[in-house]
């Protein structure tokens, strides 16, 4: 029986595909690679790599310790590379997330609240970031998190820098 090898990407090793235009504009496909994006990002920048009206998916370079954030709805963190510790805290004051907030808000310092627990997640692991909680990421070495959320005030959109704009993929 043939031995099959599953290929994943990483910050250290990724290979992009691309769009071969026949009769279209490559920009319609908003084509990027999350590892390339994260390789050029600052730690914990929330760079949108997908946008569907109010919803986004963000490629986040996990490196060192992030600030605390509080989501306005459930979010989901999928580790795509590395190992990330996710610390959760139940907010004493849910009002830290103003009504009508989309996505999440950054919090100053460590918010008051009860420790909920910790998840140590590696490649392929998905963690619930529940509404009503605050979360903090920590990664001893650079990694990548793909975050399912809504576009918020800290979401960074730099499509022209991250996406293919030419009719054929560039080498």
């Amino acid at each position, binding site marked *: *029986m043939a031995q*099959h*090898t*599953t*290929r*994943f*990407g990483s910050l250290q090793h*990724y290979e*992009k*595909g*691309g*769009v*071969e*235009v*026949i*009769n*279209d504009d490559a*920009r*319609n*496909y*908003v*084509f*990027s*690679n*999350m*590892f*390339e994006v994260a390789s050029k990002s600052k730690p914990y920048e929330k760079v949108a790599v*997908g*946008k*569907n*009206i109010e*919803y986004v*998916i963000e490629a986040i370079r996990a490196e060192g310790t992030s600030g605390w954030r509080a989501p306005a*709805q*459930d*979010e*989901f963190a999928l580790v*795509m590379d590395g190992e990330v510790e996710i610390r*959760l805290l*139940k907010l004493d004051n849910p009002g830290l997330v103003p009504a009508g907030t989309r996505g999440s808000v950054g919090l100053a310092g460590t918010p008051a609240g009860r420790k*909920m*627990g*910790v*998840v*140590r*997640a*590696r490649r*392929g*692991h*998905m*963690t*619930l970031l529940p509404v009503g*909680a605050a979360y903090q990421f920590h990664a001893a070495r650079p990694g990548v998190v793909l975050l*399912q*959320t*809504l576009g918020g005030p800290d979401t960074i*959109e730099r*499509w*022209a820098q991250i*996406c293919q704009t030419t009719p054929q993929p560039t080498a």
Partner: protein
Amino acid sequence: MSTGTDVLPEIGSIEPNRHGYRTFVLGSFSFSRDDYFAHVTWPKGRHLLPVDAFLRALQRDIAWGFFYGTVNFDTVIGTVNHYGSVDLFAGRFNEHYRKAGRDHVERFKTPMIQRVFEAILDDWTNATFDPFASPEETGTAFGPKNGSNKEAITRHRVTAKRMVNAPGDEPLRTDENGFPVNRHFRDVPQDRPQVIAEPGFEDDVVAFNLFAYLSRSDVTWNPSVVSVCKASLYCPTTEEYILPIIHGNDRVEWFVQLSDEIHWDVEDRETGAMRARVTMKPGDVAAMPADIRHRGFAPKRSMLLVWENASPELPQLYASGKMPPAPVKF
């Protein structure tokens, strides 16, 4: 377009044909099969599809509840979901059929077309064939009637309410509950995240290994909801061989390639004219615009994250032109 009828039809002929299969009628469409082909007729034409391809497409259409937008079984036959009713068409999205006036569309209440499609799938799927499996993992669909495979065609559809492995939600896949690791994913780590919950927060501190979960999927080209962020749905799936349908979008959807490689042919939704080829490798992210149709080719079983926006108002917004077909302008 005919408005069709809401009267429930007889579900297939009582007597099977000489190949052992029943014939089905839906409005003015009829469906029959022989050893090799599904035969579809309508008032202005007839069409043959290889029966294995037909059953694979039919299985997805049923399992997905007619999905988002158009499910082209091939370049002639398919369905359009209106979320409560469904168009069954022949040649509707084929430029040449349209020009020749040979296209035909009828609309049916969803429960009615679903009932007929399920009856066809049940009667025409032999014991040797699993329409959800990759070709290497199943036997033949061809030949005279040879039993049935109810277990394969009525699999549970995974639709997490919050996230897989959250309390009360969809369970993990394990050897014990009938989901061994697939032959193409034996090298995928099966480790679990380390979860340390403080007392009282056991139900709130939740994580799981999505890649291990996908490595145990027993179906191909079948998106399942694993996490829900309001109307934003993560619908990952494992892909091998060819997407059995050509999906015509009624909204933007996004693909995130989690492992391995998929090649997509992208065509104009209305005419089928080629627009682009998209090759996706691990970590690649791409949008499928709202005015295209696409078909994927996966040389090795791969993990694909399909990301959907399930907001019910979207089809009308795109159809009316209030939303541009591409998700981002830059």
